[in-house]
């Protein structure tokens, strides 16, 4: 891609817009924010993510000026702002409760800050109209806040906080009160508005999906400290602690002891690119082949229409069903025999003799007696001998009826299957009682139907799919 990636945090010459330097906040003898340092850059969409009570709102209120800080410095554009009162800061906040003025119309709510700035009437008119258009609220300008719906109130609150064109906009759980569908739509709207206005956004949320969707970077917080600051994909793929791995999304955790991998294992041939692709998505191919075969089998079995049928279709059904070629076809599920046949045809296609080469180096994690250790080629050898936790996402764990050719493979039994529409999660109990989640994309309607409750199965994952975390 020709477009340069937006990543000012990797550029040492860039000056941060916001800088927290060893900031602490104490309420009496309770420490809400503990010696926290953080930088946020211009035009960023920065998310503060953490469980309720971890200090996210306190961070916002310190930025807006509603809480004095107990120690450290907050800098905006290089200027210390700890002593600047809220009405003198180029920062606006969208409140968790929206805090719309109930006695003023939507129009007056949005104009409020501009009037306080002493702008002339023409400017205010134009700016308020622009904000109303931006948030698609023009029709409701004359209404009072209690005469519009929750989602509309949220948009008015956004318009009001953007009207003064602040350098920094703070959003405290802005979408908490919206239902799921509206929330998702609004997330994209927020991103769009952020891009259009070029304002730096700091958003607070306890919803990890929301943070992943909107943010350029995420700070994961725990009890007044920042555990990790990174881009959403790094937070997800390379969490730096068990806390982050567990907080973001679903995860399988194996705690054990690390040992460096023996040298003779490292002598395996160099991994190839094709191998990596195979390592991350083998089951898709298999599943796909399964279904394609099954579909052709069922297609041959479909009855063809007779003359009467053709006539009925031309005269009547075509009008509202559309052309037959494009009409969606519903296939009956294949019989178990067909599935077995498809699998049998597919099986020899896999070269049984060429065992996959496993990337050399890394560590082994001894996690249970009587179970082979987990091979983690990406593990840091420096942790050898220490207690570690091996973390792997369910979607990186495959599930098969027979032992797969995978660096890590364990036998178990299907205890539960959660069908979530687009994906299915299998809960597999290993021989030593450990529960492992494996996720399958339901790319085809029939994928993996053959695995069911109480089945003896194998789970597997590649040597680089997981992350080794120090305890």
């Amino acid at each position, binding site marked *: 891609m020709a477009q340069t990636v937006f990543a000012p945090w990797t550029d040492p010459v860039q000056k941060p817009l916001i800088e927290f330097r060893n900031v602490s906040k104490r309420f009496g003898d309770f420490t809400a924010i503990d010696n926290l340092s953080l930088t946020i850059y211009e035009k960023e969409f920065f998310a503060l993510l953490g469980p309720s009570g971890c200090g996210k709102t306190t961070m916002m209120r310190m930025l*807006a*000026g*509603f809480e004095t800080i107990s120690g450290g410095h907050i800098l905006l554009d290089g200027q210390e702002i700890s002593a600047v*009162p*809220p*009405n003198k800061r180029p*920062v*606006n*906040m969208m*409140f*968790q*409760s929206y*805090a*719309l*003025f*109930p*006695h003023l119309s939507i129009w007056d709510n949005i104009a*409020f*800050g501009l009037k*306080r*700035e002493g702008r002339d009437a023409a400017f205010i008119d134009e700016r308020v109209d622009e904000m109303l258009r931006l948030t698609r609220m023009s029709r409701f300008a004359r209404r*009072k806040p*209690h*005469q*519009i*719906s929750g989602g509309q109130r949220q948009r008015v609150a956004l318009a*009001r*906080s953007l009207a*003064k064109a602040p350098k920094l906009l703070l959003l405290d759980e802005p979408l908490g009160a919206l239902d799921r569908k509206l929330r998702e739509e609004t997330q994209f709207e927020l991103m769009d508005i952020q891009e259009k206005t070029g304002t730096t956004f700091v958003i607070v949320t306890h919803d990890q999906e929301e943070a992943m969707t909107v943010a350029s970077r995420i700070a994961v917080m725990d009890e007044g400290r920042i555990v990790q600051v990174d881009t959403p994909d790094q937070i997800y793929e390379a969490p730096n602690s068990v806390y982050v791995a567990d907080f973001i999304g679903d995860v399988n955790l194996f705690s054990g002891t690390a040992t460096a991998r023996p040298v003779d294992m490292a002598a395996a041939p160099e991994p190839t690119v094709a191998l990596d692709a195979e390592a991350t998505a083998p089951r898709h191919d298999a599943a796909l082949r399964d279904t394609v075969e099954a579909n052709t089998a069922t297609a041959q079995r479909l009855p063809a229409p007779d003359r009467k049928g053709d006539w009925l279709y031309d005269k009547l059904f075509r009008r509202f069903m559309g052309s037959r070629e494009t009409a969606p076809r519903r296939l009956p599920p294949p019989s178990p025999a067909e599935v077995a046949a498809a699998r049998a045809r597919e099986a020899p296609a896999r070269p049984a003799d060429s065992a996959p080469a496993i990337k050399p180096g890394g560590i082994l994690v001894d996690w249970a007696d009587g179970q082979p250790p987990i091979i983690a080629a990406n593990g840091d050898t420096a942790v050898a001998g220490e207690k570690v936790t091996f973390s792997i996402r369910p979607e990186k764990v495959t599930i098969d009826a027979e032992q797969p050719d995978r660096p890590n493979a364990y036998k178990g039994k299907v205890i539960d299957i959660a069908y979530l529409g687009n994906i299915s999660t299998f809960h597999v109990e290993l021989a030593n009682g450990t529960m492992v989640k494996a996720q399958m994309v339901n790319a085809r309607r029939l994928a993996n139907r053959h695995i069911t409750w109480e089945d003896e199965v194998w789970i597997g994952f590649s040597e680089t799919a997981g992350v080794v975390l120090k305890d």
Partner: protein
Amino acid sequence: MKRFSWFNATSLSLGFAFLYLPMILLVVYSFNESRLVTVWAGFSTKWYGELFRDQEFLDAAWVTLKVGVFSSTLATVLGTMAAYVLVRAGRFHGRTLFSGMIYAPLVMPEVITGLSLLLLFIGIGLDRGVLTIVLAHTTFSMCYVSVVVSSRLTSFDRSLEEAALDLGCSAFAAFRLVTLPIIAPAVISGWLLAFTLSLDDLVIASFTTGPSATTLPIKIFSAVRLGVSPQINALSTLLIGIVTIGVITASVLTKRAAVAQVRDEQKAVRAA
């Protein structure tokens, strides 16, 4: 609707009779043709006419009005400030003591309030007249205002004020532009309450008044000692009217704001 039992109906009418029979009698006799209070001689409004020709009564009415307006306005300002500080200032040293002291005059015997004020005015050498009554009335009605206003402020969303600050208001501008308009119904009903209290007061006014300032209750009280006249009945009827209107307006103001909000919200829900 559930029907009243015989017992309920009796106790209800007894209670209301106890409360309102004396006043009804007073109102009825204010329209009596006869000069004799206890003898009904036909309907007439002549005592009202006579009342308005009596210079002394008119003077007293004027004094009462002045005292009422000034003292209730002063009490509203002070009471609102006190309520604002007590609700907003959070926990400061001696907060409980302060809020307790604000409410103490509510239960203090009027005689004691009156007497202590009288001693104070004599002590500082203030001539007793309209000014001293205004001050005295402000003192005791201020706590009523602060009770009414602070109960509204406790349910007031603090983040509204913070939003105003965030949008560039000074603390005072935030109060004037956001807080005050929203709590206005409570402040107005506080004013009306203070005004009716001032209109009613006999004891404290008698302690703190001088020869130049006679309020209506004092006037009525001294006139009655010479014998009840239909004129007094007419005057009292007028007072009852004013007080009733004041109290009803005060409660309607507070209620209507809430009702209007609920109705609008329901409308918004139906429209959505």
